[in-house]
């Protein structure tokens, strides 16, 4: 009996594999392949809408922003991807620098402020996210919070700070700090925060949790992590966002953005997709559902957020902070990163 079972099982495995292999052939004329570093929960409703509107079949590969970028680099010119959609400007900038992103049509680029897109037109921001200081509501009176990120070097914050130094948005913020305050000030700031016993968290989610349960009192994160937590855990959730003052590096607005691959088979569909993501509907979706900042004119920011006009982020071109190498060197030299 048994050997027959084994043979049967082996045959089954083979057929299953062959069937599975032939099942998914990559797209024809009306298709589009997106590699997304943003998660399905956030992005899929927009994709569904796009498919409905255009009849284009969109296949999305979800993963971490950097992993998806690394995958595209390894795939080389054989990459099936048409569009790369990343969480931060850093990975987009790297892909552009490696020559993997094609120039976007000017009409598309012109729809948003030039600060939020590549100077060479190879990637474009789709939604904005602000850096904030999330604080524990029990231990911290928001009125006493400094209006500049620079002031957290004060010893009163000793042992009370958390951050996520491996996070791309954090690194973008450090780049902004270098540009605004200069190399030496940035170094001094990193060293001082480290001397204040800043605790490393693997990502923004974990950092925010730590602020909420009082493990630390303040964490430097992106603004929108708060809202799913409030939705799931109710108003009792122990952390809230604080925005540092106008023009402060701590109020940097970064983007999640996209680019079209140089090897894209479906360039036209890819352009339509980006247009869709910058449509009023989609931008409204970002404002309402993902609690991000819309990047085109005329869309209301979510009432819970400080509008961009009041936020007054530092005047920095994101093209300038997509080059991370200097920042990484600095982070390593100061021992913030291993």
């Amino acid at each position, binding site marked *: 009996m048994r050997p027959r079972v084994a043979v049967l099982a082996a045959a089954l495995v083979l057929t*299953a*594999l062959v069937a599975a292999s032939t099942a998914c052939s990559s797209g024809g004329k009306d298709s589009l392949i997106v590699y997304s570093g943003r998660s399905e929960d956030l992005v899929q409703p927009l994709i569904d809408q796009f498919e409905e509107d255009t009849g284009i079949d969109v296949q999305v590969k979800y*993963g971490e922003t950097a992993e998806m970028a690394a995958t595209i680099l390894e795939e080389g010119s054989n990459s099936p991807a048409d569009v790369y959609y990343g969480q931060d400007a850093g990975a987009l900038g790297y892909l552009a620098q490696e020559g993997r992103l094609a120039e976007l049509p000017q009409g598309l680029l012109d729809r948003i402020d030039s600060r939020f897109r590549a100077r060479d037109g190879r990637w474009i921001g789709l939604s904005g996210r602000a850096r904030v200081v999330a604080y524990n509501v029990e231990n911290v009176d928001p009125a006493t919070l400094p209006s500049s990120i620079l002031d957290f070097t004060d010893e009163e914050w000793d042992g009370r700070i958390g951050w996520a130094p491996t996070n791309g948005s954090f690194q973008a913020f450090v780049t902004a700090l270098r540009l605004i305050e200069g190399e030496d000030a940035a170094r001094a700031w990193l060293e001082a925060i480290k001397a204040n016993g800043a605790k490393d968290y693997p990502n923004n989610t974990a950092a925010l949790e730590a602020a909420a349960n009082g493990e630390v009192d303040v964490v430097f994160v992106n603004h929108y992590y708060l809202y799913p937590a409030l939705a799931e855990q109710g108003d009792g959730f122990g952390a809230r966002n604080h925005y540092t003052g106008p023009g402060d590096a701590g109020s940097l607005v970064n983007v999640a953005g996209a680019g079209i691959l140089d090897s894209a088979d479906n360039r036209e569909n890819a352009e339509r997709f980006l247009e869709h993501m910058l449509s009023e509907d989609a931008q409204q979706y970002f404002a309402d559902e993902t609690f991000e900042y819309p990047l085109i004119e005329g869309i209301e920011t979510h009432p819970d957020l400080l509008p961009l006009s009041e936020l007054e982020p530092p005047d920095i071109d994101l093209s300038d902070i997509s080059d*991370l190498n200097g920042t990484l060197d600095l982070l390593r030299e100061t021992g913030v990163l291993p």
Partner: protein
Amino acid sequence: MAVIALPGRRAVDIPIAVIGLAVLVAAAMLLPAAYLVMRVLGEGSAAWDTLSATSTTDAVVRTSLLASAVTGGAIAIAVPAAWLTVRTDLPLRPVWAVVLALPLAFPSYVGAFAFVAALGPRGMLQDLLSPLGVERLPEIYGFWGAWLALTLFTFPYVLLPVRAALRGMDRSLEEAARGLGKGSLSTFVRVTLPQLRPAIAAGGVLVALYTLSDFGAVSILRFDSLTRVIYLQYTASLDRGAAATLALILVAMALLVVAVEGVTRGKARYHASVSHRPPEPVALGAWRWPAVAFCGLVALVALVLPASVITFWLVRGLGEGESLAVVREATLNSAYVSSLAALAAVAAALPVAILAVRYRGPLSSALEKVTYSGFALPGIVIALALVFFFANYVTFLYQTMALLVFAYVVRFLPQALGSTRSSLLQVNANTEEAARGLGYGPARVFARVTAPQMLPGLSAGAALVFLTVMKELPATLILSPIGFNTLATEIWSATTASYFARAALPALILVAVSAIPMMLLVLRERRVS
């Protein structure tokens, strides 16, 4: 009546097919290493700078310390637990047998997170203790936190083979020792333990290599192991050359671990004699309740605690009006691909194990060791290596289920190999020759005599692979066909967006589904005895 078989002696007819298959498997297992070497060579002298940096040396030292400590801790938990659940009259023995195997089902990125939520300085435990005036618990971050989490989530790697070895071990040896006037403890240390050495070593290798490869637990518990540094190279600077250089160190460390295991394993060539009687339990007497307390404590921290935390997330989310996403498709996908991978891994392990056990020699032992080279690598390295080879050279398989299953086999083959190998060691080679003498050719002998005797080991190996594929994330994200979601990717997707409640349900289902093969294994044991 234990008999020492000398299976190494057969020089006749090493089947070419077996050698061919084993070489093929080993070649597949070397793909990631080949990719790394290629990237490192492309780096030139920069690779040398990365290697010789003090930060690298420090990370290597830290990682080695962690791997050693976790391996030691896992053995210290697993060996007594195995003995208690196999050889004694511990109350609810079969329940403990399943329960203590289950911590392996927790993905380390989920388990460690739940760990922090529960035991962190201001975690749930502190919350419970706050009426007593406990404001803060001691830090669990760093070396000891990573050590504790990894030990608790990996000790079943040792538990399973040691249990199997205890069950297959000839009790008369122990009885002989008792007859010579040795006490229980002395018998265990001097007779039982040496017999268990190959099983402990086989499990210990898996623990050590898993620890080397782990990213989830060390990143959440903030321990800068080599994988974290590698990961950083990818995420922060997309520096594939530096990442490859560091990853190659992991390959070297893996081979070192395997070499150490080879020495520890010794020249064990054993099989249980046919006169083996099913064991009669040792009466624990007054030690009954301390023994229950030991098993209970381990189960509490390694299983009940994370499961409760996840359940809490779920309930809290539901309370706030979160709706449950349907994860039926992801559950089926996970179970399906994990089953395929488990079968494929066992099938791939067989030729390597046969060669290593029945036809000992430098070639077979080299092939066997090589298959371990990938297990110490973080999933992302293996995934990117396969992306490179398949997207560019074997395009028709790229982003297919076949490649995904192949990737799982490359990543997890050692888990199947260990138990396959040791189950083959327990098969008396004379039974195979007896069948040849009765007119059966090699293939039929394998099907009718060898494979049925190996079945417990093969299923244990398959169950282990099933379990780890269920929770595998990086290779799944990168290599799966587009639109193929698993429970692990659902969990990842929800947690990256900070939705704990949405992550909780797939996480609980993942653990529950992983429990199924474990339960089947234990039930099967009971039927046999």
